[in-house]
């Protein structure tokens, strides 16, 4: 019973915390540009405002356009519910493994890219095409870094991997998994649409990927899509934090243990947000056709991570 309670509360935590992680990166960028930036509550107000607005829907749109925001949000929610957050367990982790996790995200993306084509605008088609292309190339790197970790832990379930890795000595584990960390970090940048892959702050047709897909959305649909994008980003940060820095997760099922785990989790996630923000500040967006090179680097890092374990031993 307490497990279910903990799992639900950590799912709620991810859902509610997601916008503030985006805020943190925005604030960092603002600070680096000598701007004040939004306050923390502003991101939540933005979502609230969007939810209350009426919608303008394209005349060409079909039911796919209306179904997508809900489907995307639902699927992202299920993916988040599979992820161990504060303690190494999750609500629906029994249902499947890392492969299912990857394909659930792919399902959400499939609907979003369909909706982008649904309105029949050039922007939508462009965003849809770019998103599908880049995410196809990110997928092998993502899967292979999971496989490299799976080889180490003898399991592919996210819960199992986290709790196995938590038991290893930090130095030894990081020696073997740091390469996979690099691979997953690059994939995280691509999947959450951050510089150097995509620029979330611009609406310039030359650079847009994610924003181009959702250009026709407004009101509560836009709110749902933005929110699920933020949740997806936080889920990736959470995975990075828990797979590569799994220490101090609330192993004990107690309020105190949970509280300590929560504090550590917040620290880890915001630290990763800081890293991503730092990369965003210090690099320029890559040209679209340079992004595959970056994703290839991620793939090679994942290969090396697996190979190093095979050669030196787990």
């Amino acid at each position, binding site marked *: 019973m307490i497990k279910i309670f903990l799992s639900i509360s950590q799912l709620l935590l991810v859902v509610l915390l997601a916008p503030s992680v985006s805020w943190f990166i925005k604030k960092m960028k603002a600070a680096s540009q000598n701007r004040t930036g939004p306050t923390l509550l502003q991101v939540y107000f933005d979502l609230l405002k969007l939810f209350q607005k009426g919608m303008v829907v394209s005349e060409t749109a079909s039911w796919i356009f209306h179904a997508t925001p809900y489907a995307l949000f639902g699927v992202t929610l*299920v993916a988040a519910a599979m992820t161990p957050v504060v303690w190494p367990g999750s609500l629906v982790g029994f*249902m499947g493994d890392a492969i299912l996790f990857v394909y659930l995200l792919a399902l959400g993306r499939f609907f979003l890219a369909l909706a982008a084509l649904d309105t029949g605008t050039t922007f939508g088609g462009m965003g849809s095409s770019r998103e599908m292309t880049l995410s196809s190339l990110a997928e092998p790197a993502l899967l292979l870094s999971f496989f490299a970790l799976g080889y180490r832990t003898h399991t592919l379930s996210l819960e199992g991997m986290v709790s196995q890795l938590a038991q290893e000595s930090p130095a030894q584990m990081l020696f073997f998994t740091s390469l996979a960390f690099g691979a997953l970090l690059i994939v995280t940048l691509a999947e959450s649409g951050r510089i150097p892959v995509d620029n979330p702050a611009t609406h310039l047709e030359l650079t847009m990927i994610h924003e181009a897909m959702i250009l026709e959305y407004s009101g*509560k649909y836009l709110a749902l899509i933005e929110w699920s994008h933020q949740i997806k980003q936080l889920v990736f940060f959470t995975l990075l934090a828990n797979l590569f820095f799994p220490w101090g997760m609330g192993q004990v099922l107690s309020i105190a243990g949970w509280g300590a785990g929560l504090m550590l989790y917040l620290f880890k996630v915001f630290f990763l947000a800081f890293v991503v923000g730092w990369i965003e500040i210090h690099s320029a967006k890559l040209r*679209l*056709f340079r992004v595959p090179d970056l994703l290839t680097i991620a793939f090679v890092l994942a290969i090396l991570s697996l190979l190093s374990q095979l050669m030196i031993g787990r």
Partner: protein
Amino acid sequence: MELLFLTQIVLYFLGGISAFLFNRSEEAANRLTHLSAALAGLVGAFYSLAVLFSRKAFSLEYGGFLQTGHLSFTVDLLSAFFIFVISFLSIATSIFAIGYTREYQGRKRIPLLGFFYNLFLLAMILVVCVQNAFYFLIFWELMSLASYFLVVFEHEKREARRAGMLYLVMTHIGTSFIAAAFWLLFLHAGAFSFDAFRAHAATLPLVLKNAIFMCALIGFGTKAGVIPLHVWLPEAHPQAPSHVSALMSGVMIKTAIYAILRFLFGFLGEAQGWWGIVILSSAILSTLLGILYALMENDLKRLLAFSSIENMGIILLGLGMGVVFKSTGNSLYASFAITAALFHTLNHAAFKGLLFLASGSILSKTHTRNIEHLGGLIRRMPWTAALFLVGALSISALPPLNGFISEWMTFMALLLGFEGKGVGVRFFSPLLASLLGLAGALAATCFMKAFGICFLGAPRSQHTQEVCEVSESMKWGMGILAGSCFLFACSAPWMVGMLRNIPESLMGSVPSGMFARKAFLWSPSGVSQISPLGIGLVLLLVIPFTMVAIRLILGKQPLRLGPNWDCGLPGLSPRMQYTATGYSKPLRRIFSFLYQPTRRVELEDEGHEILRTAERFESKISHIFDDWIYKPASNLISTLSQKAKQIQTGHIQLYLAYIFITLILLLLFGSRL
């Protein structure tokens, strides 16, 4: 059981021949021939399932008409499985055909179509249960020829005749290799019956074994459409009537998988490790190149045909891992890998059949296969659109549909390589698994393009003007397959529990290990598990829950329809939408080393310096195997034929002289022996 088997065969005969009696009424002929095929399919599905459940094989034997042995049929578990796949898909395609064939009425001879359709199905059923190499080859040839006549059914079209010829040539090259493999087996075993092959398998010398394996792989690989032997497949499959394309892609190429399994786990004795490596290499090549070429296609049926090559690759990945494990003596893992391959065989039949039928629906209403001319069909053909979407989701291996489940099993089969012997297996198998992930993601992109450009947006041309939804029988045909995509996914643990008996029956004793328990699928190494039913239920709960919750919290909100955002420049037209060619442009550029794309832009200005009256744009990609192997080969053959022409003068005296010289040479040769 025997009775049902015979009933099925008789029904195919009746269906094939009786249609000719109704030469006057084409509709009656159409209904009769296809309903009888559907009924035969039902009978076949019934008795094959009974065999699979009861695990009791049955056989039939007819006296030796010839010296080549008895004509005997045995429906064991493996045969029953393939009979089930063929029968199951043929139920749907036959029902679909009733509506689809109406398009040909008055134009073509329906009874002829019905005859070859039934003959084709009959030949496939017989191929997968006959127990004698001699008759196997006869039925194999019958299957190839029946499908050839179906490919050239619209023989007034030049491309259909060309495709048919290519198919005929390639399939006979394949058959000659198969015949060679059987001949080598006959030399060793001294008889044509499969039982004799199996009895002598253990004493097969290594050299002979390797030679037979290579012959069988090339021969059956040609039928399976494995790269680089695939060249006929994307030409021939699209030319046949769509319900036949569904059968060709869905089951005909699978008969090759059946035969390869018979060879590897029966006739050839102990497997060699390098066989697995050969199979795996051609499998990954087919998987990646198949989907990469599918991505570049704008012809809907050709796109589906290329994607069949990809899926044969996925099936062979499972099969190849099975051979690798068998050669190292790990029969538990081998049986898991084979089970994964078999399950994907079934699932591919369901979703590829569905997609071909749906593309047939589009074709019958719009009369074009070029997706650049379509668009906005979701409003005119809502049922076809929804059913195509189910197929597209399934083939893209997205949960909770059946494509995901069998792809997951293939992932697990590859990841079992972690426990394999040697660093090579441990390194390459996860690498192959990640490439399978790449193929899955590319498939999603490919079918996004196919669905999005055909069904979404605004109509791009006149073709979509007078389109309406297809007839009931076509909807039902597709609906059966779409329903089974869900059914196979949810019942996967039970299906797998049944399918695992097949590799076990082939390999003899297999140590027990868990593949499936209750509603869960397991990897036998215990690495991972999934619950297909759980995924389905959770998604089914969460998505509507989100919808209802948001409606309840926010209440009814104003919704206004408006035109698309045009950046302030009014006058958007449907022609400004993204095209299919444009959609795949990023990938064409990223993989340009493979595609070698060429393009030509012509501007016509009619004397004006600035004003251009017309522009022509042409973009082409090259298919490396066509350019490197097949074109040089066909050029060589035509050069040689030109040379050979010189001795053909057309004078009868000269030919008599040739015959005379040949006779003398033969006599000399004979007397020396």
